[in-house]
Structures are given as C-alpha cells and as structure tokens.
C-alpha cells in the first residue's frame, strides 16, 4: 500500500515537473514570437532568456547591465493562466525609466534607449490571473 502511494506521488510530481517544463517552453516560444517583430526593425535577439513562475501580487526583478546609446526591447510572455502581465524598466537608483510600452494580455514589452552605461532593473508583474510560468528575452541594436 505504501509502495503504491509512493509510486502515485512520484508519478504526480513527475507530471507536474513535465507540465512546468512544457509551460516554460511555451512561454519562451511566445516571447520569441513577439521579440521577432523587433528583429524586422534591426534589433538583434539575445540567445539567453530568464524563465520561472509568477503569481499575482508577486513581482520578479532581474538585474541587467546595458550600454549607453544602445536601444533595447525587453519582452515577457506568461502562460495562459495569466490574464495580464506588465514589464517596467528602472535605472540603477530604482527610478522608473520612460519607455515605449506594449501589452496584450499574456505578453508585454518595453523599449528604450539606455542613457547611461551600467545596471538597470527589469520588473515583471502578473497583474491579473492565476499562478503561471513566464519567460523574458531581450533584443538590442
């Protein structure tokens, strides 16, 4: 009986991990699709990405180091459980940077030209919906 319970719990946890991985692959694909639009405007897409899970009311912040004069687009996509996501860029003092916004339910993007070289912070929030996966990519020119 105990062995059977262990086996069932092992299978369930295995399925949960597979589902999370699938979600992350799907959100990455969505982020890349949106970022692809910027490639038409001469932006080069970085091969790296940042993914994880997110829920309403819990912001995710990542540090990036940028070069003055370069134009950047940061693109995030969330899983179908999200209803709305947002993305904001902050300078090294933590002040909000003015940027070109784009948002459509489970995807959002923010574009700007770095005024100074150095660290910036990218903040992602799920403003409506259930816990889900997200993926962030960025492009530059």
């Amino acid at each position, binding site marked *: 009986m105990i062995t059977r319970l262990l086996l069932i719990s092992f299978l369930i946890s295995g399925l949960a991990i597979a589902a999370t991985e699938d979600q992350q692959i799907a959100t990455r694909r969505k982020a890349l699709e949106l970022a692809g639009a910027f490639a038409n405007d001469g932006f080069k897409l970085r091969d790296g990405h940042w993914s994880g899970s997110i829920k309403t009311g819990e912001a995710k*912040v990542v540090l990036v180091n940028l070069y003055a*004069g370069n134009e950047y687009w940061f693109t995030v996509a969330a899983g179908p459980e999200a209803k709305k996501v947002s993305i904001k860029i902050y300078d090294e003092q933590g002040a909000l940077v003015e940027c070109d916004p784009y948002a459509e339910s489970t995807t959002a993007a923010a574009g700007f030209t770095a005024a100074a070289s150095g660290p910036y*912070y990218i903040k992602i929030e799920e403003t409506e919906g259930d816990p889900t996966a997200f993926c962030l990519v960025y492009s530059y020119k």
Partner: protein
Amino acid sequence: MTRRFLILVTASMLAGFLTSVSAQNADQLTKEEISNAEVVDHISFPIPGELFTALDKHGKPDWSAQFRTPIAAIYTNRTQIALNLGGLIADGYLAVEAQDGQQVKNIARDIKVISKPLGVEQDLLNRANSIIDFAEKGNWDTLTEELEAVQNEVVIAMLQHQDKELVTMVMLGGWVRGTEILSSHLSTHYKPEAAKLLRQPKIVDFFVKRLADMPKKVTNSSFMNKIRLSLFDLRKAVTFPNEAIPTAEEVKKIAEIAANISNIIATKE
C-alpha cells in the same frame, strides 16, 4: 453636519495621500527589490556583441588593430581553460566585427582545442564547425548569433556537469577581454562619449563577490590570486558616476589593468 463634513474632507485627503504613495511606489523600486534582484548568467551580463554595437555608434574602428597573438591553447587547469574560453569567444566577436574570415576560423579552431579538457567539446564541435562554414561564406550577421549560441551552450553544458564556477570564469574571461579591446581602442582613439561605455561597476562587483564565495580549490592558485587583486583595481577604475566622463588618462589606466588581467589569464600556469 460640520463633523460629517470634516470626516469627508479627512477621508478624501487620506485617499489622495494613499493614491500618491501608491503612484510613487510604482515609479520607484524599493531597496529590498534592488538588493534582491536576480542575477542570471544568461541575461544579466552583456555579450561582446552589445559592446561592439554601442561602440560602432561612435564611428567605425579598425578592429583588426585589436587582434592579439594567439594564446597557448593548451592548459591543464580547468579554471584557466574556462577563463581563456571566454576570452576566445570575445576574440571571435572582434574578428567578426573586423570581417576577417581567416581570423574567425582560427579562433573557432582554438575554441574546439581548448574546450576538450572541459568535457564540453562535443556540444561545441557542431557550432565551431558551422562558425567556420559561415566565416568562409562571409555570413557576418549569422556569425554573431553563432558566437552567442556557443557561449550559451558552453554555459548549459557546464551547468549540466555541475561546473557552475566555470560558468563564472567563462563570463569573466569574456568581459575582461571585451573591456581590454574597448579601452585599448579608446586609448589611441579617445572619444569622451564612447569612454562612458567603460562604466560597468555592477559587473565587477558581481565577479569580485562570486570569486570570494567560490570553493578554495577553484581560486587557490597563483594566477587566480593575481586576477582577484587586479579585479579590485579594475573595479575602482570602472566605477564612476553615470554623468562623469573618464579622461584619456583614466581610459589608459583601465586599458593597462585589463591587459594585465588578460595576460595573467593567457599565461600558462
């Protein structure tokens, strides 16, 4: 009546205050958000391609002047191999910017040779071969994508081999070589606006802290001790206010420190 009016006024003022506080919060990260911000190897560090893109806005430099003599390519210390691998990837970007197909092919071959002892050579073999193909065809845009893919595949392979310290070494080697190329170019072609690109305090901070937290077996060697000491000098040199412009002398100082670290990395232990 007066009491009700006072309550209404107070409530309205309180609502206004709370709205204002909320708007301020949306416009400003908290100290906790800044200090707890994630640092992700794949995204938090600029790749050399971003650096070259930024510098190209200040003119079209003669990148071939920054080529260096080939490194030994035969190292036994894994830490030193990883550092040199990062430097070679930066050299690859430089050769692409210079549009020198032969140099790109030489570097791709060096990357294949140097990676063997790390156990990631199979992951790199196909990429290195396609880099050679693209270099022969002069497909420069695709080459920069391939070079970034090389770096990412190295990182993924190292993480799979539980070699997260080596990932840091690849990033460090690439960043030092990139800084050396930029500062060396600006030493001879000084432009105040371009000199501002040298400001990257958080990156050196990150490397200094990561190296301090590493197991002694990784950092306890003569060359790593020298690198760690020189990184303190480099941190001081590239940390300046964001509106400040480094002078030509300060740029030369950065170039000297970065070149010194590059030499330590390339000199066989």
